[in-house]
């Protein structure tokens, strides 16, 4: 799981790219219905957005072989790392989904046809077999080959595990203390096509498949070295360094260093050994990556396009200008920035199809429950519920986001739909916009609500622990600068809050500052001065793809920035990982989180990358379907005449 960020690589966080709503819609206030929209919102219909292409495009005309697909990278988000064991520092869609995964295939492939599910037809591994009370997982590998002629074997997975188990494990983007690979008691390769993992507990098989096995990628033995001057190792040429912990750490250090040299990627004997459908032909200093089909690709289908060129852009404006001026001949697949959503019909008219796929994510911002001043107020569930009622999500979507976002009220994404999670878990009622409901919640818990003034606590025993008589509700909400829609939303939130006597002091900082300020802390620590931080995006599920909460809301979890700690939520999180019926447990977990509001939910942008308004696909490109997790399958794509 990863904290969502803007522009591909978060300088300071483990993040994926997501511009959440740079829409430059109306600057007017949102619906402004301060008290009357409760009922309407409570019965709100499910979102109409987030409808991605669930089937590959099939344009009319003769299918062609060859052709170059031009694809837009995010603004200033060119790849900067190539080794698939990526650390939080370089954990971005630009590096993972758009580059590494096309060359170095993970063991399992997820998200095809806009469903957040596993696709065994595209995977190296066959369906995992669970035994020993689900503690043991046996994985048979399909017969794949590396481009250097070596077979893809279970030894390549042992190599990966050896690296993860060495010190680099803490640098793995998907690392959660206590979970993978800490919860792996042992692993082995009894034969070249069989890989066996023994877990320390009998976990739920679905959870293991989606959250743990998703973190495995076979890597070639040609990488098992500590310098380029060494001859390329193979399985039969003797001792390999990764078999000891120190050796694995040394290999990781070497590969990590080589992965940070973009200038040598296209010529490196390391990175040219691939098992995916493409390999890197060139990479420019500006970030333009040219990928060509790997002629030795073992999977199916084989690529029929002759090239995939990923083009770097300096700004959203530059993307739009290029789309409008040159059209599908210069950009075949393009992620349209949200601010240009009103131009979608004009772009469709010049030869594009708009794929309104959402990424498997949800948007929120944390309140600091450990802040020494307002932490006691934020710790009260009724306060968080009341505050959540002040967000006019549907009004914001109309007024500020040009209908390119989905109302959000929980950790389970509403879109794309998932067979793993019951639709019953998606309820918008706790998040319905209603200042009257907020006022009622505060009044019934000992607060004297003063609309337009300052609401104060009159009955501390009802207000909650740590709140004193006469204390007002006033705090600072820091949000990302430079994004008009976020600014409009926060201004509206402050105005709505004032209507129930909550004073919000709005401040802004660059994205990097906001995202790195929101850290879990203890009240006595200097880092605990922050009160509310909104970096304008939220969380995307990957490389753990099941929407569970062990990274988000468990005490001490890496991304539990607000220091939320609720026994019932913790229990449900724990139960999901070991449950026999994960759908039921996930449903209970989702409802629990929606009701308890550990963070403030806000509209989740659609768009596979960067919270764009959608992905524009040239109408003569066939085989394109949305991937629920933002992965790319250009081996499926073809042009038609």
């Amino acid at each position: 799981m990863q904290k969502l960020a803007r522009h591909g690589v978060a300088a300071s966080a483990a993040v994926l790219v997501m511009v959440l709503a740079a829409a430059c819609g109306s600057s007017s206030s949102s619906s402004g219905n301060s008290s009357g929209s409760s009922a309407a919102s409570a019965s709100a219909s499910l979102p109409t957005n987030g409808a991605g292409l669930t089937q590959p495009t099939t344009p009319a005309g003769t299918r062609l072989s060859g052709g170059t697909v031009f694809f837009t990278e995010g603004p200033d988000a060119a790849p900067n790392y190539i080794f698939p064991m990526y650390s939080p520092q370089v954990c971005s869609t630009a590096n993972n989904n758009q580059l590494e995964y096309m060359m170095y295939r993970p063991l399992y492939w997820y998200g095809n046809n806009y469903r957040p599910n596993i696709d065994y037809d595209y995977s190296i591994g066959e369906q995992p077999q669970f035994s020993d009370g689900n503690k043991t997982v046996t994985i048979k590998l399909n017969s794949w080959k590396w481009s250097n002629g070596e077979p893809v074997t279970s030894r390549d997975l042992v190599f990966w595990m050896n690296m993860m188990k060495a010190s680099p494990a803490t640098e793995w983007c998907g690392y959660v203390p206590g979970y993978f690979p800490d919860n792996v008691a042992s692993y082995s390769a009894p034969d070249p096509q069989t890989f066996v993992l023994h877990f320390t507990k009998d976990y739920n098989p679905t959870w293991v498949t989606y959250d743990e096995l998703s973190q495995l990628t076979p890597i070639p033995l040609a990488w098992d070295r500590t310098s380029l001057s060494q001859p390329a190792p193979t399985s039969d040429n003797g001792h390999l360094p990764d078999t000891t912990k120190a050796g694995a750490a040394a290999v990781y250090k070497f590969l990590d260093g080589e992965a940070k040299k973009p200038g040598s990627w296209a010529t490196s004997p390391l990175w040219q050994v691939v098992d995916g459908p493409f390999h890197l032909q060139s990479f420019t200093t500006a970030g333009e990556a040219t990928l060509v089909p790997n002629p030795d690709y073992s999977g199916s289908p084989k690529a029929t396009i002759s090239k995939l060129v990923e083009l770097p852009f300096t700004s959203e404006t530059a993307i739009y200008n290029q789309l409008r001026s040159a059209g599908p001949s210069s950009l075949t697949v393009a992620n349209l920035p949200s601010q240009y959503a009103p131009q979608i019909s004009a772009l469709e008219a010049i030869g594009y199809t708009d794929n309104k796929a959402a990424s498997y994510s949800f948007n929120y911002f944390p309140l600091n429950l450990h802040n020494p001043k307002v932490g006691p107020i934020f710790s009260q569930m009724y306060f968080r519920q009341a505050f959540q009622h002040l967000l006019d999500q549907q009004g914001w979507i109309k007024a500020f986001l040009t209908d390119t976002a989905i109302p959000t009220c929980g950790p389970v994404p509403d879109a794309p739909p998932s067979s793993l999670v019951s639709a019953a878990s998606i309820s918008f009622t706790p998040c319905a916009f209603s200042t009257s409901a907020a006022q009622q919640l505060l009044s019934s818990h000992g607060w004297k609500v003063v609309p337009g003034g300052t609401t104060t606590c009159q009955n501390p025993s009802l207000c909650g622990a740590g709140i004193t008589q006469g204390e007002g509700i006033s705090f600072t909400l820091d949000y990302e600068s430079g994004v008009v829609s976020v600014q409009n939303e926060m201004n509206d939130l402050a105005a709505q809050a004032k209507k129930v006597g909550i004073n919000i002091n709005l401040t802004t900082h660059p994205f990097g500052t906001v995202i790195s300020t929101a850290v879990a802390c203890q009240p006595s620590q200097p880092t605990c001065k922050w009160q509310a931080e909104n970096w304008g995006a939220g969380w995307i599920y990957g490389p753990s793809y099941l929407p569970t909460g062990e990274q988000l809301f468990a005490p001490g979890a890496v991304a539990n920035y607000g220091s939320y700690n609720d026994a019932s939520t913790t229990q449900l999180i724990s139960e999901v990982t070991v449950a026999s019926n994960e759908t039921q447990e996930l449903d209970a977990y989702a409802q629990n989180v929606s009701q308890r509001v550990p963070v403030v939910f806000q509209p989740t942008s659609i768009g596979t990358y960067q919270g764009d308004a959608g992905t524009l696909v040239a109408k003569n490109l066939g085989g394109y379907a949305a991937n629920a997790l933002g992965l790319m399958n250009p081996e499926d794509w073809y042009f038609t005449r």
Partner: protein
Amino acid sequence: MTGYIIRRLGEAIIVTLGVTMITFALLHLLPGNLAHDVLGPRASPQELAQFTQQNGLNRPIYVQYWLFLEKLLHGNLGYSYQYNRSVDSLLASELPRDLVLGGLSLIFALLIAIPVGVAQAVRRNGVLDYTSTGVSFLLYSMPQYAIALLLIQFLSISFHVLPAEAPQSSSALGMLAHPAGLVLPVASLTLVTFAQFSRYMRSSAIDTLAQDYIRTARAKGLSERLVLWRHLLRNSLVTVVTLVGLSIPLVITGTLIIEQVFNFPGAGLEYLQATLSNDYEVMLGITVLVGVVTVLGNLVADIGYAILDPRIRY
């Protein structure tokens, strides 16, 4: 003159040292923590401590500054943690391209502004003067991005005459091989710079025309062309030379908006991104470079005065 240049170079070194010192101190006063920014919020205290130790961040600031100067003297401007590249290599790939863009626009602006300014002065209060003044005011008052977007709208989107993005070649020579792509970004920069330069040139030429030596030259029976070429132009250029000297640093970082609009990754954009992501060493490297170029630009301007006006002696 040689002595003057040596003296000025000495002063330039002192000023540059001052620039590095102030920049270094200011960047270290910024809120945040380099180790935290680079390693991310998931970094453990041990990792943060290790990074701090490895990069000397736990040493006194004057020691860190001395180490920075040592690296600088060896041509090492630092390392970008965002781009995983040395700052030297970043600038080496971007500066030549910036020089093409900024340099061409500067040259075109001068080539247009100087004759227009002189013509306005000579035909003061005429149709040409009023028209040129109006155009200059219009261009000067327009934000650069507005000019760029208007050019793109008309010439790229509506009429498809020119491409909407700058040449994407990673080398300066490669850019020149695609002149069509250069037209709009260079024109956007040129139009604003021309407006500024032509106003100064007009004003300077009007002052020069009122000088006794112009009247004397005409009284001697010198042709009007020689008066303008030998006496008016040369003496009027002093003001423009000052502007050109001050514009040289802008060639490096002054094209930020154009870089964003025309998909042209350059040093200006690099600097902005470094600021947003707390990529300290990139900020430091570019600031020092701009400081040095500013000092050199002023030096070149001072030398230019002496060449243009023999009465100026240092």
